């Protein structure tokens, strides 16, 4: 019960960070906080956090962003699914190698988001869309360390 609460709380913080106001040019590289948190929990505890959790987290993002319902839900499901495929290998990697793996995973998520967005007709198809994935991959070691610390501190199992 308590561990679900802690996990939910990290999701909430990620949502908060993803709507935090940022100055205009930096905005383009806003890290994919929620995707990273989803990836972390799926990787560390695939028995607790799975596709459904990711889907609901994505739904919350859709409502917050005011985009088509299901758009981010689909993207988050993709991230969770990729992590479910990869977690047994990634867990054994050192942090910097994990970062390298996160780059294509999050990049794929961004690509899917770009496709969905251009279907909805509101996004210029420029290469800039990969920037958030790159920034997130760079931030991954820190996010991972912080979340593992949280996990250890509050005995989430």
């Amino acid at each position, binding site marked *: 019960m308590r561990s679900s609460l802690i996990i939910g709380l990290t999701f*909430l913080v990620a*949502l*908060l960070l*993803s*709507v*935090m*106001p*940022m100055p*205009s040019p930096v*905005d*383009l590289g*806003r890290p994919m906080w929620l995707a990273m948190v989803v990836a972390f929990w799926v990787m560390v505890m695939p028995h607790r956090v799975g*596709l*459904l959790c990711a*889907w609901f987290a*994505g*739904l*919350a993002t859709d*409502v*917050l*962003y*005011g*985009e*088509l*319902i*299901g*758009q981010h*839900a*689909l993207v988050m*499901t993709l991230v969770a699914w990729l992590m479910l495929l990869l977690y047994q290998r990634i867990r054994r990697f050192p942090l910097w190698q994990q970062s390298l793996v996160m780059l294509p995973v999050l990049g794929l998520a961004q690509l899917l988001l770009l496709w*969905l*967005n251009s279907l*909805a*007709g*509101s*996004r*210029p198809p420029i290469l800039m869309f990969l920037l958030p994935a790159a920034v997130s991959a760079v931030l991954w070691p820190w996010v991972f360390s912080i979340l593992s610390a949280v996990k250890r501190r509050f005995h989430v199992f």
Partner: protein
Amino acid sequence: MALTVVSVAFMVVDARLSVLQPLRAQLGMFLMPIYYVAELPVRTWGTVHTQLTSRAELINENERLRAESLLIKRKLQKLATLTEQNVRLRELLNSSSLVDERVLVAELIGVDPNPFTQRIMINKGEHDGVFLGQPVLDATGLMGQIVEVMPFNARVLLLTDVSHSLPVQVNRNGLRAIAAGTGNNEWLELRHVGDTADIRVDDILVSSGLGQRFPAGYPVGRVVSIEQDPAQPFAEVKVAPTAQLNRSRYLLLVFSPESGYGDLLPALSLEADQDAAPIVQTPAVSNETDEAQAPVGGQPDAQ
């Protein structure tokens, strides 16, 4: 797999129908506090700033505001007679009278995190009478329109969003055009303006009211550059919006009889008779005093 199907189904349904609106509104009600919390540091800084403003600064500001108010009052005196004259002339012409709109002050609570759209969140929603397509202004001009209404919040699409355009006319000669958003919050562009059209740099553009969405006569922008390329069929006209799209903290929601949905509000029919004293605009909702005061109190952080 099932989740993918559900997501895709949701997207299609959401794009084509409005069945999912209640779900969105209800979820929105729980999730919108996140925007409040995210804006908290900015707000706190604003409060601290107001608390710590020095006395001299306050006196200065007070004086400046007094002078400004004097100037505006002088203009208003003229406006009263002009408005009456206008109404009388319109009566002579048998045309529909120009009704003054009611406004409601709203506060910005968040900016859309997606850098490719130009949208903002405000702290007024369905409970305050906000409706879909309602025009939004700030102190200096037209800002945009409401695109999503939640119980206590609403989302505003700014003029500069790529998917937004509105009918305008040149204030000097009444030339009509369409001002389309560019996705950059400092530019609008005029679509389909002929090379020979009588439009100059520094011309003021006002809303023409032809789209039945925005009330006529509000300033939209100022022409900053005109490029005439012989290879192109139309001139490329760049317009800088007069509203401070990325700075305004307090916005005005207009309840206008002209905007298409206005007649849904029964209260407005009363307003139609009161042409005589159109100077004082009252916010449409009951707790008007503190809302009307809000912009004055928030002046320091708006600068």
